[in-house]
Structure formats: structure tokens, C-alpha cells
């Protein structure tokens, strides 16, 4: 992907580049704004002007706390917004194809085909009354013309690639017979069964223990890389982003705060919120932890100032003058007037 200068272009122009030129990001979210409730009685605007680009074979981390809108962004991309939520403005493009306003039929084709999702709870994405192998095979059949036998063999192969021991036997098991780590591996196999261009992993390891978390994340990265797919990894843990993704986007209260190469975002953060998050994940030898005062905002409406202003250690009067734009700065984009 080119530097930030190019990504400031409106999506319409970015999308007009001829396919195959390599400049079209796999995922291009431009000025995405989502609201709950219809216009006159809008209850909240959980996503406000989200910009997010994921290039081919790139791993992007979407970092934020609860209520930051990171999962809702993923839901919007997948066309799975919860009841009552609607896209107010902005566009979402997958390989240059506009997804906002796309038919449910088309979205269904794309989900599990060109884009796939892996949830926090693997048992939620696997049907408990079907065998694990059976449902992976079924997905393969829906999205390709493979036959029953062929799809089953492919499913077993996939499970084996995901490091499940004795895959031919385990494919006939049900998900409740799998341990937590194994179930997440099976969910990954399911997500990758149709060679998606984009894998969205929504907190895939949050319920798992640390040693397992590491194993599963490494597997996800390895599999995505070997398939040349892009990864959008949603996490609350900026340390996970740091060790597994090339680029990082930090969200807060439904806005993008900072976005750029992981090394520079986590190495020399320009948004005070990013620094605060990093400090919260750091260890200090003083029987003290870094604390950000205040509470995490929820159900925000249209903002008139920086969302982090109330909690920011560097807050200045100009932070209250308006919502800071997401502007390009060196190798990244930052929404902070002080940056």
C-alpha cells in the first residue's frame, strides 16, 4: 500500500484504479458512519467516519476497548449490522466492490467466499449438532462444485493443516468434544475453507489462556500468510497487535484515533490515547499501574470535540473546538490536534 497521502483520496477515486494494478486494497472502508435508530430519533452513532484500508496479504490490527466500535466495524463489513443499526454514510469496498447497499444475496456469496470471520467463541460459529468435518465440508460444497467425498477429504486436510492431531477421526467428532484451543483451530479451518481474500478475526483468542493464545495467533498468522490472504485482527490487546500485525488502527469511542505501521504506532505513538493504551499494557516496577482516569464512553451521539478529551493527560482548549480530523502525518494518520 502506498503512503498515507494516497489513502486520503476519496474512495471513489481509489476504487477507479484498474483491478489488478495492485493498488486496490482488499478492504477499503471510507468515512463509514453507522447509527442506531432512524434519523430524527437517532439514539447513538457508534461509528463516526471510520477509515480503514487493508492491502492484499497485509495483516491489520484493529485495536480498541469495549464500545470503541471495533466489532461493529467488522459487522458492517460483513453486512451483519445488528437490528436497528444502519450505515448513514461512507462506503465499504471489498476488492473494489461496493458493499453498502449490496443485496443480501450478494453479501451471502461474499461471506464465507471472499471474506470469512472467526469469532471470539469458536463454539458459537460451529453448529453443536453437526460433526466438525461435516460442516466444514458443507461450506466447501456451497462455495465450490466439489462433491461430497471430495469436500470431506478437503475438510480433513484443512483440519490437519490447522494442527489438529488425528484429523480423520476428529473430523467426525462434535464441537463439544473439542478442547477450547482445538475448537478455535476448527473454526479457523472453517473460515479458511473457501480461500477468502480477507479473514476477519474478532478477538479470536480472548477466551483462551495465554499459552494457547500465543499458539492460536501464530497459527492464524501462518495460515493467512501462506494463503496470501489479508487479515483484519480485532483485539483489545495492543500487545497482540504489536507481535502479530504489520499495521495497526487504534479506535476509541467509534472513531479512528491513529493508524499506520505497527512498529511506528506502538513505537512512537502520536495520539495520546495510543500512548495511554501502551502504557496500560506496560509493566512498571513500582507497585503501581498506569491508569487512565474516567470511564469508557458508551452510546455516544454526534461529537463536538475530541472523544478522548475528558480523559486525556495532554488536553488543551483547542481539543474542545471540534472533532479532530484524521490527518496524514509522516507514515500514518492521526486524529489529534496536538500531534
Amino acid at each position, binding site marked *: 500500500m502506498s503512503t498515507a497521502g494516497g489513502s486520503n483520496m476519496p474512495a471513489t477515486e481509489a476504487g477507479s484504479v484498474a483491478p489488478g494494478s495492485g493498488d486496490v486494497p482488499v478492504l477499503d472502508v471510507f468515512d463509514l458512519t453507522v447509527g442506531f435508530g432512524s434519523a430524527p430519533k437517532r439514539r447513538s452513532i457508534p461509528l463516526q467516519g471510520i477509515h480503514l484500508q487493508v492491502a492484499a496479504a497485509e495483516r491489520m490490527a484493529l485495536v480498541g476497548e*469495549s464500545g470503541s466500535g471495533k466489532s461493529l466495524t467488522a459487522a458492517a463489513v460483513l453486512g451483519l449490522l445488528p437490528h436497528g443499526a444502519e450505515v448513514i454514510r461512507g462506503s465499504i469496498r471489498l476488492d473494489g466492490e461496493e458493499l453498502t447497499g449490496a443485496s443480501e444475496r450478494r453479501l451471502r456469496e461474499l461471506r464465507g467466499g471472499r471474506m470469512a470471520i472467526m469469532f471470539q467463541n469458536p463454539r458459537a460459529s460451529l453448529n453443536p449438532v453437526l460433526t466438525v468435518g461435516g460442516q466444514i465440508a458443507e461450506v466447501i460444497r456451497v462455495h465450490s462444485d466439489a462433491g461430497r467425498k471430495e469436500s470431506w477429504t478437503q475438510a480433513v486436510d484443512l483440519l490437519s493443516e490447522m494442527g489438529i492431531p488425528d484429523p480423520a477421526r476428529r473430523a467426525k467428532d462434535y464441537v463439544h468434544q473439542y478442547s477450547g484451543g482445538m475448537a478455535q483451530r476448527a473454526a479457523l479451518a472453517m473460515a479458511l475453507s473457501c480461500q477468502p481474500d480477507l479473514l476477519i478475526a474478532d478477538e479470536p483468542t480472548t477466551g483462551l489462556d495465554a499459552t494457547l493464545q500465543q499458539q492460536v495467533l501464530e497459527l492464524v498468522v501462518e495460515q493467512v500468510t501462506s494463503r496470501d490472504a489479508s487479515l483484519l485482527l480485532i483485539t483489545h490487546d495492543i500487545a497482540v497487535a504489536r507481535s502479530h500485525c504489520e499495521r495497526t488502527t487504534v479506535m476509541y469511542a467509534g472513531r479512528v484515533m491513529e493508524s499506520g505501521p505497527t512498529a511506528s504506532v506502538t513505537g512512537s505513538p502520536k495520539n495520546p490515547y495510543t500512548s495511554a493504551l501502551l502504557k496500560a499494557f506496560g509493566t512498571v516496577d513500582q507497585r503501581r499501574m498506569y491508569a487512565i482516569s474516567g*470511564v469508557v464512553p*458508551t*452510546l455516544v451521539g454526534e461529537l463536538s470535540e475530541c472523544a478522548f478529551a475528558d480523559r486525556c493527560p495532554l488536553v488543551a482548549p483547542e481539543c474542545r473546538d471540534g472533532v479532530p480530523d484524521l490527518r496524514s502525518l509522516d507514515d500514518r494518520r492521526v486524529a489529534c490536534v496536538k500531534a
Partner: protein
Amino acid sequence: MSVAPPRASGSAAWAGGLRTMAGTRPVRLVVVGATLAILLVALVWDSEWRALRVVVSVLAIALAPAVWDSQRRAIRPAVAVMLALILMALIGPLFTRDPLMLNVGESLTTPGSDLWFGTDQHGRDIFARVIHGARLDLGVGFSAAALAVIVGMPLGALAVLRGGLFDSVLLRISESFQAFPTLLLALGIVAAVGPSIPILIFIIAIVNVPVYLRLTRSAVAPIVNADFVLAARCAGQRQLTILFRHILPNVRQVVLAQFSVNVAWAIQILAALSFVGLGVPVPTPEWGAMVREGYEQLVYGRWWVSVFPGVAILGTVLTLNQLSDRVRHTS
């Protein structure tokens, strides 16, 4: 987690006022409990205590807003209809003719402006009989279901808390009760000791105790080890206090939902028993008995004799089912 604003009190201010008048929580519970008890007694056995009935009615009207206010919006229509039915049962009889008065000259009059529901073959006013019948049917229904809850709910909770042998024995006993077909059991007992309203209430209650026992048991089981129950133990509370303050209030939705269905079901049983002639003694106005008396007239086109009490049964049962449904979905 969202920081919700304090819940806006949507209902009228006087409801709040009355609620404060009713006092703090324990006081309110006593008032409601006493009212309900008097209500039940009045409904079932009182034929003459009109003064008491008026007092009870006034109390019920005074307390209605509190009930109204504490419930969520979705159950209000059903609560309103139910309250109207109860009110009808309570004060309706004051304004109708004598339901027992025979008038052979006026037998089988068609419904009209004077006699709204017409008269039966003995010339008795069907409207008066339907209204009076409400007292008996609702009274038996509510008393039987209430008795079953009062016994079944604590037993079910105790079964979970004690566990082990106590739990097993209780379950086996309740299973043996449930093994009897209710209607046959009721028929048998009534045939043996003769029809009497307290016995009917008792039978219907006994058969329902296992229902509440099992229901409460399954609802309590996931709660007994909940963190807030552990917290109550950390606060040094006695087991019974924890049961009544923390566990049972958290399962009352489920039980309340069952309660409404149960009242409806009790009414149906009473009606069924009366229909086969084993319910209430003959001249007493009771919906099921009235349907039976009228069904012979149906073939002659005199539909009103059994249809009006039938509609009363249907309406009450539907309202109660509706209430049960809504309660279940507001938890």
C-alpha cells in the same frame, strides 16, 4: 456496559404517590399479601359480606397502580384485562339481578336490551350468572394456584440448597403425584367425598405442587452458585435469608409465568368437573356447569345459554395465557 439514565417514571405521579403511601418494601408486601388473602376468602366463601367486598375492592383499586407501575409496558394490556375481570367478579354482583331467582315465565328469553345475555330454561338471568360465576371460577383458580406456589416454590428451592437425599426423595414423591392423570384423580376424589369447593381447591393445588417444585428447582439451580449468592454468604447471611432475599426474587418471573397458566388450567378443570356434574352443587352459578346446562339448547338454536359462559371461560383463559407469555418475555 452502558450507563443508562435513571429510569424515567412514565406513569402518572399519583401512582408513585400511592406507592409511597403503601410504605417501604416489607410493609408493602404485607399489605399486598393481606389484601390477596382477604380477596381470596371473599371470592370463594362470601355470599353476603358485601361491606367487606367493597372494602376489598377499594383496596384492590388503590393497589392496582402500584402493580401497574412495577410491571413493564408489555404486560400492561393483559394486566388491565385481568384486573377488570377481578373487579367484575368483586363488585359486579352488586349490580346484577339475583342469579338464583327462578322465573319460569321468562324462560329462554333471547338476549336483548333488558336481559343482556338472555335467560336459561329456568328463566334465570344469564348475565347475572356469568358475573357471579366469575367469583367462583377466578376464586378457585387463584386459590388453587396460589396454594400450589406457596408450597411448591420454597420446596423446590430447598431441594437445590439441601441437595442429596432430600432432593431425590422430594423428586420421587413429586413424580408419583404427577403420574396420576389430574382429571381422573379429581374425579375419583370428588366421587368419593362428594363435591365441595375447598376439596376442589385442595386437589388442584396438590396436583400442581410438583409443577412449581420442579420449575423452581430448575430455575434456582443455576443461581445458587451465582456470585451474588456467594457475596450474600460472605455477608454472613443465613441460608433462609439468602433464599428469600436473593434467590427467590430472581426466579419469580418464571414462577409468575407458570402461575397465570395454572390459574387458567384450574378454571378449566373446575369447568370440566362441573360439566360432568361433579363440580359445584346445582343451582350455584359456575361457568362450566352453565355450559353443560345450556348445551342441550344448542340444537334448538338457543345458543346464548352456553355460549356466554363459554366465552367467559375462553376470555379468562386467553387473558391468563397472554399474561403468562408476556411475563415470561419481560424477564
